[in-house]
């Protein structure tokens, strides 16, 4: 109540033109901001800006598209380093329950998480009263077929020359060096993992993935690659690298090859498919026809649209923009 009366006094009471502080402060400041007069750029979609934009997009996109397309098609020539992939289809690595079923603390070598994995790992958290390392459905379902590639040097007696497949260098640097770490401490890997057990589906524990100390345990690159889950149910993952040995010889010369697959990994039950892909790469990655075609298409549409708009604008402009404003 009291405040109300005060307010009234303020409105009614004072002399109408009272000079001084109180009255002055009521006057709004004359600033560009408060008076909404801030300098501003007011773009308008005019023919002069829109049409060139469309043509420029066309002119940029079409060459890019052609470039990508050509590069992408050239990839089949097996020159330079060759990459060996395994592909799986109908495999839902992007399923919500699958994606979260891991413990990154454990994989980062946290000793407490090693022995007490996250609940997210259920039902692959503990087995036989021991914590599973690495826990979770992702690790448990790790791809474990073995692929070996041989060059048939002599067709008649099937002399096979094994191709050296490099195991290392197939994972992201950050994954290998930051995200995945073996548990700290001295001693062998086996000792570090001694209180844990292997994932249910695995044939051997995590410290026996490789003999190379630098590619074993959690930092095994096959494991790291698997743990980087795919976005789509059909995916490929890098399996091995075939390095080019000299500039004179192609990495994989023309000829017959022999692929030896040790089946360990059942996919038949859920209609899964396995693939093996050999590919080289260019500046923009592997073979990718979609991007090139898309660029060419969009570039063309943009160019066409520019032409159409130009025609329409030319035909109708007299009746609109130049006309006087009529109210």
């Amino acid at each position: 109540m009291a405040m109300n009366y005060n307010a009234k006094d303020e409105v009614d009471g004072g002399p109408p033109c009272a000079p001084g502080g109180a009255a002055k402060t009521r006057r709004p400041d004359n600033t560009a901001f408060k008076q909404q007069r801030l300098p501003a750029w007011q773009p308008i979609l005019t023919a002069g800006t829109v049409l060139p934009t469309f043509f420029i997009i066309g002119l940029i996109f079409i060459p890019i598209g052609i470039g990508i397309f050509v590069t992408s098609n050239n990839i089949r020539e097996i020159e330079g380093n060759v990459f060996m992939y395994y592909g799986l289809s109908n495999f839902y690595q992007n399923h919500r329950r699958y994606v979260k079923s891991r413990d990154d603390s454990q994989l980062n070598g946290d000793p407490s998480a090693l022995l007490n994995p996250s609940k997210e790992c259920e039902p692959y958290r503990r087995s036989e009263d021991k914590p599973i390392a690495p826990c979770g459905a992702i690790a448990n379902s790790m791809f474990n077929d073995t692929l070996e590639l041989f060059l048939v040097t002599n067709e008649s007696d099937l002399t096979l020359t094994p191709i050296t497949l490099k195991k290392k260098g197939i994972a992201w640097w950050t994954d290998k060096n930051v995200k995945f770490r073996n548990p700290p401490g001295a001693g062998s890997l086996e000792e570090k993992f001694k209180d844990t057990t292997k994932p249910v589906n695995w044939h051997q524990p995590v410290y026996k993935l490789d003999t190379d100390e630098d590619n074993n345990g959690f930092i095994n690159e096959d494991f790291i690659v698997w743990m980087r889950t795919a976005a789509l149910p059909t995916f490929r993952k890098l399996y091995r690298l075939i390095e080019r040995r000299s500039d004179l010889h192609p990495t994989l010369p023309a000829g017959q090859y022999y692929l030896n697959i040790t089946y360990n990994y059942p996919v038949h039950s859920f209609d899964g498919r396995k693939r093996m892909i050999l590919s080289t790469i260019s500046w923009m990655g592997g073979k990718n026809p979609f991007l090139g075609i898309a660029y060419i298409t969009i570039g063309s549409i943009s160019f066409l649209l520019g032409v159409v708009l130009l025609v329409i604008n030319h035909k109708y402009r007299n009746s609109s923009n130049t006309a006087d404003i009529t109210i």
Partner: protein
Amino acid sequence: MTVPKEMPEKWARAGAPPSWSQKKPSWGTEEERRARANDREYNEKFQYASNCIKTSKYNILTFLPVNLFEQFQEVANTYFLFLLILQLIPQISSLSWFTTIVPLVLVLTITAVKDATDDYFRHKSDNQVNNRQSQVLINGILQQEQWMNVCVGDIIKLENNQFVAADLLLLSSSEPHGLCYIETAELDGETNMKVRQAIPVTSELGDISKLAKFDGEVICEPPNNKLDKFSGTLYWKENKFPLSNQNMLLRGCVLRNTEWCFGLVIFAGPDTKLMQNSGRTKFKRTSIDRLMNTLVLWIFGFLVCMGVILAIGNAIWEHEVGTRFQVYLPWDEAVDSAFFSGFLSFWSYIIILNTVVPISLYVRPKACSQDPCRWSISSPPCSPSLTSCPLCSVEVIRLGHSYFINWDKKMFCMKKRTPAEARTTTLNEELGQVEYIFSDKTGTLTQNIMVFNKCSINGRSYGDVFDVLGHKAELGERPEPVDFSFNPLADKKFLFWDPSLLEAVKMGDPPTHEFFRLLSLCHTVMSEEKDEGELYYKAQSPDEGALVTAARNFGFVFRSRTPKTITVHELGTAITYQLLAILDFNNIRKRMSVIVRNPEGKIRLYCKGADTILLDRLHHSTQELLNSTTDHLNEYAGEGLRTLVLAYKDLDEEYYEEWARRRLQASLAQDSREDRLASIYEEVESDMMKPLYFQLLGATAIEDKLQQGVPETIALLTLANIKIWVLTGDKQETAVNIGYSCKMLTDDMTEVFIVTGHTVLEVREELRKAREKMVDSSRTVGNGFTYQGKLSTSKLTSVLEAVAGEYALIINGHSLAHALEADMELEFLETACACKAVICCRVTPLQKAQVVELVKKYKKAVTLAIGDGANDVSMIKTAHIGVGISGQEGIQAVLASDYSFSQFKFLQRLLLVHGRWSYLRMCKFLCYFFYKNFAFTMVHFWFGFFCGFSAQTVYDQYFITLYNIVYTSLPVLAMGVFDQDVPEQRSMEYPKLYEPGQLNLLFNKREFFICIAQGIYTSVLMFFIPYGVFAEATRHDGTQLADYQSFAVTVATSLVIVVSVQIGLDTGYWTAINHFFIWGSLAVYFAILFAMHSNGLFDMFPNQFRFVGNAQNTLAQPTVWLTIMLTTAVCIMPVVAFRFLRLSLKPDLSDTVRYTQLVRKKQKAQHRCMRRVGRTGSRRSGYAFSHQEGFGELIMSGKNMRLSSLALSSFTTRSSSSWIESLRRKKSDSASSPGGGGADKPLKG
């Protein structure tokens, strides 16, 4: 309460109240109230509320639970709580809990802090009020008590200018007859004083000893909120006395002009009428709010549909694929069937898709509690708490717009030093959609300042100023005003420019002297002379004040009056006239006269009145004078001035004696006293007595000063297709006059219909005729329309909408009462809406509100009411938007209003600039808001088909948390606050730019669907282009590209870029702030992205920041950037093409204006064709007095003269009772007949 055990015997005789033995069981069901004076013990038994007032809601202990409980009554908060609970269920959780809890806690905290502060101030103001001091009579002595300790049944003493502490029964006062004056501004906003009177038996209880013995008991109605009604009975000394509102002093009133008074407390604290009225105010929502609520529900339905589709998908997938995939991904323990899994996935999807539902925009209709600082009845409309939305963008934008209104220097009135004020911050965009304006007249269109502008004396007109060449000088080139320094009593503020009038006075021109003598004698003004020569006039109407002041400055100074005399200083000499009679003004007579005897003993009647009435009564011997005066009157009327004709008549002694005798007789008559008096007045004011002519003296012209810029504003608003109706309590003549002077009515209008019927039939007939005329004329105009004889109402409407010609409708209060009845209101509305201008005069406040309600109800249009007085409060509250004129006398209208400023002309800026921009900005904001949320959310839907409908999100959870709050909020906020399509000057130049708002073109259901479609289109591309690219691609080092995390980063980045480009396209006005926000948001996105994916954070919380190293790995890929570029191009290209096409094929006005501005084409053509109305011959004379009848009598009785004028004391006592009687009767008369009271007096009903 307990029932008194024994009934006092004396009551049995005095007639005990019937409901005596009934009990008052508990609080709230009180059936009647009893209070016995000076008997606290007795009154305590009833447990009436104490006078302590509590508006605060919480105390320290209850704050947290009560506040949280209240907050969770907000739909949005409950919704989020529900989502939070869902997220805590592991089988459902598809997002981590913090995505919901962070905003929720933030909102709850901010609200709680705000509520706590508010409540703190409530406590403070409560304390202040409760601790006010008042004098209470306890045990026979007056004691100082705090207000809160005053009890029902106490007798308290009030002094002049004090607030009344509770609802009191007036017992006695310092004034004779227990009279007491109060100001009720806090209650009903009327600033004029009101009289209250104690009942005769108690009015003698003047001293404390008598009062201490007073033991009367009041039995009355229970507490209620009717301010103008009170019924009760006082039982005292074995008698009962009826009590009415006339005996009550209500809490909140201020005692004025009364030294002291005593009152008996009847209602205290929360029971007082003031507190009973300080209830809940209606909550105003904009039409966009209402549309939004519908849309929110639709979207919610859409969300459920999506959830169901995906849930079914999930069930099928789990059944077909999931069961077999269990080798690698077993089901959760709790889930035993595909169906159950589908059910769970429904909830999971509800969680991740809930971002499409702009729950923050949902405003629940609610009543909000009173602001403690404003207790008056006319409390302000309440605004929804800022809290109802987690993101608050809409509220922030509206708040910004409100600040722009407050800051607008062009809406600041230098003279009154009042800036415009947006008192409600939530209605701004509706200012851009107004179709009907209802305006009050006095104080809104006019300044309520009357200026003596011109006069015609004895056939000569004064007041125009001529320059040397004989041309009429315009206002700007006027010379110095006339110097009145010869007259020490002159009013310094009075200005007059024509020196010839003063010369005529100085020359001693007899008619001129007589003219001013009349002005100084014939009125009911009271004078007050504080110091010698410092005269103050208290006039009933400003017109009278102006006339008397004019006479004063020209040397005929009305100095003082007694009931029997008037003293006038005529050119320096004091002359006392004997006042014989005042023939008072009333509505029918439209004139007033005085009969005076001058010192020489001659009796003369002076009369002033409406020309229509008076000219007929004048003697025809002076035909020439009559003609020239009539010409002058026409001329004045053409300028919109209010005219009065002055005449006098000599009376001889015998005739007067005889007449006075007959008048006395008539006034004593029991039956039809009014009629008899009227005919006796009629007789003396006519030309019957041959030798003594009723002679014309001249005419005055008073300018009812319009507020600055009113005609221009009205013209501009009319061009913007806004219809303006004037609703005024004033008389028809005055209202019409103003209609002409502010160019609402013009002489080239086809016809002005005037509806003045007194019965239902008459009104119906008049309305019908008006419609027929309009239809007829449009038929004659052609258009190929053939009149079908009898037309049905609906057909008539369609015809009326296309009516040719300009019509105006003027309707007065009586007729309006009939026209607003249920069976006629449609007819009235149709007729009125077909007219260009509508003026309703003599309307009561309630009728004002009814008219607004009527238009609101049938027209589905946004209405705005503007007014300045308490009588406009109802209308202001009813309309969609209420505007109060501030800086005027009262503040009631301002308190009730949503916007306030001090000049009517600011309305054009409020609507055409601020309103238009607000609407535009809000629409753009909403469109973009829906677009970005759909583009963002729908990606999950498409992804659902590729992830086994598992409710896996496409994005990183942090991106989901931050997308709306950080990445996309500020650019759109900047657009919503700062965007302008055309500069402000253009919206004034092209009022047609206002139309899209009225037609609701910028945001409606169609626009909504377009936005949604665009959002969905974007989401499709956003998912499928990366899908197409990633299906096969590998990184340039040969490693896999299509991993989930890279995909998430790619989609998120392209989404942020696409919506940023889109906001860039939408922003039409790139200020530095827009640049900063748009580029800043992009920068912040990348900064946060890299931070979240940094090694440092991962090392600390490996399980929370799983995306480590992702940003640098993914964004280093050319393929990713090519994908982002492609997505952006595909998303934006169609939008640009579409907009460009629309711009070149079907540009709307604002586009054209912008374009024109761009090419800097000088537009010289002025499109505002303001029709100049020349002087015309239509005479519009109004008896301009707005005063009430009865004041002549009051003066003659001397009743209103203070007791200090001792000379009158004997006279006073003699005739007092009769005066009070008649005043009372008049009051009850005026209250019972609608429209019969004072012009601006709110009537009950």
